[in-house]
């Protein structure tokens, strides 16, 4: 057992460090971004969060916006797990693991974004259950820490087992993996719901204090995560022996169209309520879409987000454009952009602009914030790239085996 684990670790390291010039260039580029981000973060540690443009008026901003968006990306896995394991749809079943890999990378980025946002990272220990002083059940952020780490562990265990079994050419243990995969469905729902509740629970911020927020988080998450995966699948199909069936890609695109429809519908419901009732609370929505007193920093992004989401929805809804690889990929990029704006800055900043006493402080991120953010995204891409680099050859070997054997290997539970 120890020997086999050792072999697995050595094998993975070899897979992760080998590779052609393209792989090494990519990794070098990401490493440079990480170094730049680390240098910026060091400056922030030394001088305090004053190096950001956050102030008492807008006390959460770029970092927390990115965190919120990435919680959504982490849900990507379940849009693959549901058809694959609940409906036993085989074409997706073979590629569901990439959803898990994406979830791991996204959660790593989430945790990093929260860490760079807090004023006393030297005290994160207080967030540990039992050892620290986690304020459960009262604090939603406390719950968020629990569910995010739980989701990370869950996905890491499933992925490790898949790869370990594949590496040693053993069938994975269905009785172990499938229950965990099924459990990852409510777990993914919970990370969204809890993150949405962090915002929605704050009566002081009418822009967030809406019961529709959690459903909207789920709907938009079901679009943004798979958008990345669809592009990845096409790259894999071209560059590796893993053949991902077109029908799997089309099916995912179709599911994304439904998710985007629900997202747009809920968005419309919110817009109607805000503008028709036209209360004092409308000012936050106005700041986002038309600006207030000449402060219009978010306006172009807000409209770009709506435009991207609507066009992507149409592209994914019409079967002809969903099956055309060019329009499909365009749709993926549009969805990604649309949701990145909507669930990031366009969610966090208007919630705090104007502030609770009516002061309008216009926030735009500083270079340091952008560099730290880019560094964290680079870490996430490194994690994802390395995990894919390890997973692809292992999956390829499974593919190379004769069809009958594959069937047998996945179908028979280990004893």
């Amino acid at each position: 057992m120890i020997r086999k684990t050792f072999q697995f670790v050595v094998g993975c390291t070899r897979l992760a460090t080998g590779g052609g010039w393209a792989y090494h260039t990519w990794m070098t580029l990401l490493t440079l971004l990480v170094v730049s981000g680390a240098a910026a973060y060091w400056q922030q540690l030394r001088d305090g969060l004053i190096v950001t443009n956050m102030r008492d008026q807008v006390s959460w901003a770029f970092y927390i916006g990115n965190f919120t968006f990435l919680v959504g990306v982490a849900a990507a896995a379940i849009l693959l797990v549901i058809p694959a394991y609940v409906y036993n749809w085989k074409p997706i079943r073979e590629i569901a693991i990439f959803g898990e890999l994406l979830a791991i990378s996204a959660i790593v980025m989430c945790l990093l974004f929260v860490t760079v946002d807090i004023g006393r990272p030297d005290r994160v220990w207080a967030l540990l259950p039992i050892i620290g002083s986690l304020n459960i059940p009262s604090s939603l952020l406390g719950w968020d820490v629990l569910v995010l780490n739980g989701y990370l562990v869950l996905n890491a265990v499933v992925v490790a087992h898949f790869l370990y079994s594949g590496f040693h050419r053993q069938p994975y243990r269905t009785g172990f993996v499938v229950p965990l995969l099924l459990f990852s469905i409510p777990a993914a729902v919970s990370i969204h719901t809890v993150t949405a509740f962090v915002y929605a629970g704050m009566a002081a911020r009418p822009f967030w204090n809406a019961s529709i927020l959690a459903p909207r988080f789920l709907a938009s998450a079901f679009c943004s995560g798979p958008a990345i995966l669809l592009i990845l699948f096409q790259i894999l199909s071209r560059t590796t022996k893993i053949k991902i069936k077109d029908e799997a890609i089309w099916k995912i695109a179709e599911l994304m169209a439904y998710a985007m429809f629900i997202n747009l519908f809920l968005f419309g419901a919110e817009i109607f309520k805000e503008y028709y009732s036209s209360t004092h609370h409308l000012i936050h929505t106005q700041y986002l879409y038309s600006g207030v007193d000449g402060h219009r920093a978010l306006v172009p992004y807000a409209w770009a987000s709506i435009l991207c989401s609507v066009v992507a929805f149409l592209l994914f809804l019409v079967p002809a454009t969903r099956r055309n690889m060019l329009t499909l990929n365009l749709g993926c990029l549009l969805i990604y952009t649309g949701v990145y704006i909507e669930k990031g800055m366009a969610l966090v900043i208007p919630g705090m602009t104007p502030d609770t006493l009516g002061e309008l402080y216009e926030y735009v991120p500083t270079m340091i914030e952008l560099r730290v953010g880019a560094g964290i995204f680079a870490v996430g891409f490194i994690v994802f790239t390395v995990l894919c680099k390890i997973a692809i050859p292992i999956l390829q070997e499974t593919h190379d085996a004769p069809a009958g054997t594959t069937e047998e290997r996945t179908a028979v539970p280990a004893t």
Partner: protein
Amino acid sequence: MSKPLSSGRDGPPSTGRRRFLTTGTAAMAAVAAGFAGAPPGLAEFLIRKQFRELSPKELDDMLRDLEREYSKRYDRAVSVTATPPIENVLFGYGLDLSRCVGCRRCVYACVHENNQSRAPQIHWIRVLQMHKERGIELTESDPYYDPPTVPEEDSFYVPVACQQCRKPPCTRVCPVKATWQEKDGIVVIDYDRCIGCRCCMSACPYGARHFNWSGPTITAKEINADMHVLGNRPRPKGVVEKCTFCIQRVRKGRYPACVEICPVGARKFGNLLDESDEMRYLMREKRVFVLKEELGTAPKFYYFYAT
């Protein structure tokens, strides 16, 4: 006189969930953390109990340590107390909007009394200028008014600080139990526990919580050496701070600094549980209201128009 022992242990009703970490297990955990190559802060952190769990002896040690540290830093004798709440006292505040002239003396008296950072400036009190024609209208208010003289004819002024809510939304959201409401109604922060996540700032409907975006600066000459551990002792970089009704004063029977300084007597302070107190008198005889009553935070900070 201050009685520093057994103080602050009267926390919110979560007493039953208190976690008692014995020094032994903490030391073991610290050693384990040390072996695991954890950053040096962890060991110290694990040994440090929650403020409300400190024994009288531990609390006293902590206060003496703080006194030594601050006396050295500011090169003068500093006293750090932990004066506990007084029995049968619930502090309440009254602000007469018809008298306030918007001079902001309260703002700066507060800064001096409570050792707020001078650069960047942190103000626990915000005075909002409002138009007489529009009434109380937060979105139209201006906190940065700067005319040669106040009050201006067409304006009135609404000072806002921590409203010391009976149902504070800020304490509920704290992920690490670093802020709570004391028995006398004062909402306090443990500056040694706050992780600076700023959830409480998002949750506060009154903009009462302020963050140390950089290390606070305050010269030795400016420091107020009469400190309370949960109040005006110097704060570190990266934590949240707020008005405590001048906890270092009011628990010794004095008025908050803002009440004392107010040149027009617009500020009132007292014990809401005492029928004969001035606060109860004005609640009976005048008509009081609170800010954002629809949020159900039940502030103990009352506004009224006496004339």
